[in-house]
């Protein structure tokens, strides 16, 4: 099947884009790479009356280095991050994650902001950026606002964005050159959505040692202090299980098991290698 008919606009700035959405009463959707919304429209699970394409807005592709903060525009593609075409605040973590997103064809079009605004719990950026404690810069009709990482995702496919707001960029605190990180994604086939994700970031220069359990039913589960997990190389079952229980996983299930293994293996990688071997 192909998508139901819809109107299409490609405005040149965010204010125009928001003006196009406001009067259409919830029937308009912003779109960037269209790698999630497109398939849903083709299945007619989504039938917006209008698509407002954000890719014509130069401001959404801007990247800024501002002291310790790096801002990446929402319309940066996964492939641009993978290929190092934009500044990397993460000492290789984001290019590594980008390389594992779906397939290259998807990465060529899919965008950072699109993925974050879509908020599929099993997607890569929503979990990675939570571990990085990224901030979300939102353009609203009334001006700009900043959403802290903890408040971005309310539930599966639900974010802090209002229907007429645009995620314009994410702001990420630079990791220090000595930072260690690890990323473990379990999926049935390369390119499929994750069944489990675990992320570790250990940046002692910035007094950060976080982990995320991801690909849950809802938002990523942040472990604010992951030192014990790293020090025990993920081998302390009681410790692992305490975090899995906190994440709301049900003991004894397949989901519990695969998340436990992802967390355990990510802890082993950061402990043994410092970073994922490239």
């Amino acid at each position, binding site marked *: *099947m192909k998508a139901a008919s819809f109107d299409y606009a490609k405005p040149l700035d965010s204010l125009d884009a928001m003006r196009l959405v406001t009067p259409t009463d919830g029937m308009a959707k912003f779109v960037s790479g269209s790698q999630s919304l497109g398939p849903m429209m083709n299945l007619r699970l989504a039938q917006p009356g209008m698509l407002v394409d954000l890719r014509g807005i130069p401001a959404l592709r801007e990247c800024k280095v501002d002291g310790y903060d790096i801002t990446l525009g929402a319309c940066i593609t996964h492939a641009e991050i993978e290929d190092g075409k934009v500044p990397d605040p993460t000492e290789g973590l984001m290019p590594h994650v980008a390389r594992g997103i779906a397939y290259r064809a998807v990465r060529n079009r899919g965008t950072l902001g699109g993925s974050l605004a879509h908020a599929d719990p099993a997607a890569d950026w929503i979990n990675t950026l939570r571990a990085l404690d990224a901030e979300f810069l939102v353009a609203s009709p009334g001006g700009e606002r900043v959403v802290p990482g903890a408040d971005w995702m309310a539930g599966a496919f639900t974010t802090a964005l209002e229907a007429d707001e645009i995620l314009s960029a994410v702001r990420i605190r630079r990791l220090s050159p000595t930072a260690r990180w690890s990323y473990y994604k379990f999926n*049935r*086939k390369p390119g*499929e959505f994750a069944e489990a994700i675990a992320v570790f970031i250990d940046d002692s220069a910035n007094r950060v040692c976080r982990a995320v359990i991801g690909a849950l039913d809802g938002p990523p589960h942040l472990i604010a202090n992951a030192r014990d997990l790293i020090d025990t190389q993920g*081998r302390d*079952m009681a410790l692992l299980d305490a975090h899995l229980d906190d994440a709301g996983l049900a003991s*004894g299930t397949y989901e519990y098991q695969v998340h436990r*293994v992802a967390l355990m293996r990510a802890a*082993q990688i950061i402990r043994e290698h410092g970073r994922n071997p490239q």
Partner: protein
Amino acid sequence: MHLERPVRWLEDRREQLSANANCREHDYNITAYAERDGRLLAVECEASVDSGAYSSYPFSACLEAAQVGSILPGPYKMDRYQCRTWSVATNKPPILPYRGVARTGVCYAIETMLDAIAVAAGIEPYEARLRNLVEPHEMPYDNITKKHFDSGDYPEAVRRAVRSIDLPAVRARQQHGEPDGRRIGFGMAIFCEQGAHGTSVYHGWGIPMVPGYEPAVIRLTPDGILEVRAGVHSHGQSMETTLAQIAHEVLGIDTDHVRVVLGDTGVTPYSTGTWGSRSIVMAGGAVGQAARELKERLMKIGAWLLMEPVDAVRWEDGAVVGAQSRRTLEEIAHTWYRAPQLLPPDVDPRGLEVSTSYHARRDTGTFSYACHAVVVAVDTELGQTEILDYVIVEDGGVLINPMVVDGQVTGGAAQGIGTALYEAMPYSDDGQPLASTLADYLLPGATEVPAIRIEHMETPSPYTEFGQKGIGESGAIGSPAAIANAVNDALRPLGVEISELPISPRVVIEAMARVRAAAGERSKVTA
């Protein structure tokens, strides 16, 4: 025709996955009886097949179940056999025949039993097979369900596969253990596949559509092109190549000068079509037979033009060759169409167009066979299975084109890998189809299908035109059994046995959890 206007059928992926035919949902309750040394004595089985809600053809609801009973003994000898099968009507979409009809399930059932026998007898899986396979000196062999195996050396296929996979090295690797903690498993499966079976077989089934003689029309055009018109169709089998090769084999005509026209009743003969691994035997036989008849007519004309008796000339490289000179296909075609005054007075008035129909010397079918040998690594923490090595030793009789056969076998095995590890059509408790996109209905892709190593044996069928056998479905039959046996070989030291397909991570994890629970242990992962 009822509407008296053209109709276009539009079906999207979701409709196709949720409403189109399913198949291969079999359930086996099977017991094998064997001597302590692994020699098979008897098999007893009760099998049921989920047939869905309707029969798509008058008989298709029973097509798989009916075959299970007759093909379950596989390539093995046994003294006693009993099998009851049931077609179970459910409220799911109906089943339809799909590559390796019923055989994937049957092969899985009997080959997992052979592994069980090997374990009980304390012998290697290949030894259990070698003790029970029909031997080459017994060919042709009528098995316990009266299947007439035409030819082959089944034990040799097993020996070659085991040699090629280097079983001693696999066993040593298992002993040694993997640095990443995964468990290695070896599995194999051997089967034979009846193909191109004809009138007597289908009449015996009592079904309303019985295939008979397979037609082909060939004609030489005025410019020396050979047109081959056959009623079968090629949906990836490369019959455009192989039927042209058969014409070349008989007539010596360059395959570039052969035009193959397939499966269109407007311009080709009527046929029951492409199914049952029959086309290369039946349509191939018909094209061969037609080409031979055409050659006879060409020889008579050519000899006359050379002014030599027919028995003094010979056919060579697409030409009639006499003591002094030669007349090519093109020259003879030109004579027939443009210079008929030069033709012999007693020329066959049917000219350069031959319409014929073919029937194998014996219509009980060809039995191609293959042995699949697989090495897998199972991640017992995540339940994920990776295929490390895959060998297929395949005997399709005389191969018209080994590269085409390789393609068929590899493609079939890819489908079998899907059956083994990925493909399932699950439903929720209230009947919602849960796999309605290809994100949920997983298919093996480039990263899941290994470089399969294929070895060919060539035991001619005594009953077909060139000794060829049908192999189109064969690749898909052996993989689920071989992969399941390999996974179980890997998990056996843990006391875990998987007895369902597909072997998804969830199936493995849950089976391991059950074993742990049974052992009274608290569920845990050891690092």
